[in-house]
């Protein structure tokens, strides 16, 4: 799954560095992702994983790293 997340970040994250140079724990906001870009990442994740982020997940920290996103997607899928 992290591969799919990384592809989405590459396409929508407007990162100032190459995603392949970042670890799963690296802070994406530090790597240049803006608030508007994080919204596009969220929408692309929803389309890709066929999920809908509930309101309580629509927070900055949920989209702060590849591993944070991965945990959130797992949690939402598990709740189905």
């Amino acid at each position, binding site marked *: 799954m992290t591969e799919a997340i990384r592809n989405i970040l590459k396409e929508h994250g407007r990162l100032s560095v190459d995603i392949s140079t970042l670890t799963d724990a690296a802070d994406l906001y530090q790597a240049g992702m803006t*608030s*508007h870009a*994080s*919204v596009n990442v969220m929408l692309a994740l929803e389309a890709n994983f066929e999920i809908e*982020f509930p*309101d309580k997940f629509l*927070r*900055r920290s949920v989209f702060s790293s590849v591993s944070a996103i991965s945990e959130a997607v797992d949690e939402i899928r598990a709740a189905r």
Partner: protein
Amino acid sequence: MSDISAQDFHDALVAHKLILPVGVPGAFGRGPVFEDVLRRFGDLVTEAAKDDGAEQMLFPPIIDRRVFEKSDYLESFPQLAGTIFSFVGNDAQHREMMNCVHEGKPWSQFQSMTEVVLAPASCYPVYPQFTGTLPEKGRLVDVQNWVFRHEPSPEPTRMQSFRIREMVRGGRPEQVADWRDQWLERGLTLLRRLGLPVEPVTASDPFFGRGGRMLAANQRMQKLKFEVVVPVLSKEKPTAICSFNYHQDHFGLLFDIKTQDGQVAHTACLGFGLERVTMALFRTHGYVPAEWPAEVRKVLWP
């Protein structure tokens, strides 16, 4: 002060000839007594800012559509934006359009998008003026304009067109944050001298849609927006009359604004909603300025 309904407040403002209804909600005219108070409040802002050395700028209430498109406004607030369309057809199309108009049919198909949109805030035309490298002490601009928000409402403080007096700051992060903190104190002092029971609160913008909920949560968590609120209709839901927005590097990146050391500049703005401040004064002290408390009158009519 007890609560008042939107309709009763509207009717009281009309009865005292402070506002002049025109048929469309949120587009009323302003009477001379209303305007006198509004102008005098503006003078107090000028007085409070007199030692800051702000550059005065004045723009028409329209902005370059390309600047608007670049600014992310449509991404954040599509529901509030006002885009200007105009007729560019020939005689036959003109006749067709007028037939539709006279028959009460839709005629928007004869209109084309122009190069300009209505200004959504006073500060938008300022950021492109900052493009390039800022001086060591950054820049500060004092600007006022009519702005448009598409949110028709019978509630008098929610207008479609109103004036915002704004101060816009660009510079290094600490310059901008310090300036904002200083103005927050200054703004509170100024409004309290006028007898308004104002309080600062952390706030968020009315971003559109589900993505907007995320943007609003981010904005609150990072404390990027503060509002100064005062009870107008109710104590429970006070009205924002002044707003402080810290954009971090948002406009610096979009409009290529740099500091002396080559970093992306940060920007912030603060705006007084002039009509809202004026309405808060009428609501707090009564609809007849001659009957306002002497200490308030002394500040506004020195």
